[in-house]
């Protein structure tokens, strides 16, 4: 079990204006899974390449168990990368693919055979040793790639969106398999993804990455329920931000005075946020409830989404049950004080706040 620490990593590419990574510091505890969540182009894949050693940082330090590995070449780091594409060697059978890393280490024939069988059982694909990669489905290929990555007992497993080209159901079973195996073997793992649900479901901790910066790093639950900054909250799906003056437990915002609770950061200018599914739609006025009109509604299955006009602002609300709309289309949105949480306002002021 290996602890990974990254400190002050920077990396720029020639001919690109903005750096791919700007002073990134992160740490993963031994045996845990750290997810890096961000949009495409946010620099998260670059981070994995630096750790794997296929690229070198401009500055900064990477340590495994406290020892720098920057001077160790990629093939001696014990960090295995898995990509969106399985990259199974097409000229080798499944068994030979899995054995690739063991052959490199000079393992005996008997060991190899036993290990290959064990790994295939672990990824729940027993008996396909002699197939060719081209004969496998996408999900099976990724399972074999996982077996090939794990058979050498790497210190670190680096997953670069390994599920994103799979069908939803296959994706979910593979996510569960990876999580189970990672836990069983206790391999420190970094998972790069742009799928919020995937990061939350699989990770022990989630790091949010945007434009080469780490916005926040915390447990899935805390990050989802109480993202610390506006940008982090947006990445977590929050769309409602209220900026205003905080005084005596009340926020004076553009929408009016709203009660907030919990430890208030300090009096004066403050920004509060609320998750779209925590906003309630109701037919009658009440505390923290504002009159609203439905502009659009979308049925998405488990959730229904509403776009509401509140004063001169629009608000996005998610409801777990479709709402019975009153005759005139007039209703009230309630922003429960216990679900309003303060966020640090790190956004450019150009965006129109509520």
């Amino acid at each position: 079990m290996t602890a990974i620490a990254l400190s002050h990593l920077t990396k720029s590419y020639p001919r690109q204006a903005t750096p791919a990574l700007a002073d990134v510091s992160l740490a993963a505890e031994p045996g845990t899974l750290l997810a890096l969540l961000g949009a495409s182009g946010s620099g998260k894949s670059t981070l994995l390449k630096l750790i794997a050693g296929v690229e070198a940082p401009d500055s900064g330090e990477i340590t495994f168990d406290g020892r720098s590995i920057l001077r160790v070449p990629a093939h001696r780091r014990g960090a295995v990368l898995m990509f969106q594409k399985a990259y199974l060697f097409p000229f080798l059978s499944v068994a030979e693919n899995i054995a690739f890393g063991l052959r490199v280490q000079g393992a005996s024939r008997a060991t190899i055979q036993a290990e290959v069988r064990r790994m295939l059982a672990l990824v729940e694909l027993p008996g396909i040793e002699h197939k060719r990669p081209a004969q496998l489905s996408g999900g099976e290929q990724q399972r074999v790639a996982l077996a090939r990555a794990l058979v050498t007992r790497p210190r670190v497993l680096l997953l670069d969106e390994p599920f994103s080209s799979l069908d939803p159901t296959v994706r979910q079973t593979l996510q569960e398999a990876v999580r189970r195996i990672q836990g069983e073997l206790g391999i420190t793992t970094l998972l790069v993804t742009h799928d919020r649900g995937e990061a939350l479901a699989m990770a022990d901790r989630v790091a949010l990455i945007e434009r080469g910066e780490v916005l926040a790093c915390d447990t899935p639950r805390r990050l989802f329920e109480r993202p610390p900054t506006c940008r982090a909250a947006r990445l977590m799906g929050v769309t409602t931000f209220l900026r205003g003056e905080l005084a005596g437990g009340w926020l004076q915002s553009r929408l009016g005075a709203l009660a907030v609770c919990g430890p208030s950061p300090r009096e004066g200018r403050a920004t509060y946020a609320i998750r779209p599914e925590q906003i309630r739609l109701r037919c009658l006025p009440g505390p923290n409830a504002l009159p609203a009109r439905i502009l659009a509604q979308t049925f998405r299955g488990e959730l229904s989404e509403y776009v509401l006009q509140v004063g001169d602002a629009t608000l996005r609300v998610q409801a777990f049950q479709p709402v019975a709309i009153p005759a005139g289309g007039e209703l009230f949105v309630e922003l429960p004080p216990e679900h309003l949480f303060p966020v640090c306002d790190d956004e450019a002021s150009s965006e129109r706040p509520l």
Partner: protein
Amino acid sequence: MRGANLLVTFRAALLRRATRAVPGALCIALLVGPIVALVVYACSTRWFFPQLLPAEWTLTPLLRQLGSPQTRVALRASLLTAGVTTALALVLGLPAARVLGLWRFRGRTLVLLILFLPTVVPPLAIGMGLNILALRLGLAGSLLGVVLVHLVPVLPYTIFALLGVFARYDEGYELQARTLGAGPLRVWFRVAWPLLGPGLTVAALFAFLVSWSQYLLTLLIGGGRVITLPMLLFAAVAGGNPTSIAGLALLFAAPPVLAIALAARALAAGSAEVGQQY
């Protein structure tokens, strides 16, 4: 309704096939015709103009000619030259093609243009320029000199063939192998080489064929001391005996045909193995 549908579909398919089949058939007729004529020539004597087919068929002169020591020496020189040239062309062409195929940089077009040049300039002109160089370097008349001169037309063709290979090459496989613990040598021999295999086969074939059919360059640099098959063939043409010409021509054609057949087999096996994935 359904019948009418089917008819329309069928007629359209037929028309499409026909418009595609005609040029195809024409192509094949143009290409196979001469070879058949060659075989007829080599295995016959006394075939005069108004006759549609030769009067007499015999293999004796063909066999006698192929068994002569002169032929055997020339065959060996040809094989040696073409083989060494092919190997050198691959060693020099691989890194060049990798850079040109995988990277985009300024001046790429210019480099490609310069590469094209020797395929255009007539061999005679190249040969004269090289002749001087070879004389000054003391390479004239030696097999090494002939090989180096063959590289001039062979390299561009090799590089072009390899360019196509690298355009489709995915470096991710090499990356994957490195993170699995494979050092540079192992990555090259166990991953890159098998992946590039089919493309390398085609490039080697091109190199071999181009070197194999050189005549003027060999003559100019070899200075009469290096005798290859094409030179025997030209001498035979000067002699004017059609059977003898056709026999040498068939011998000349045999190794390339064999090389092509082997390459085709390697390619077919490779593609069956690799399947749709690569």
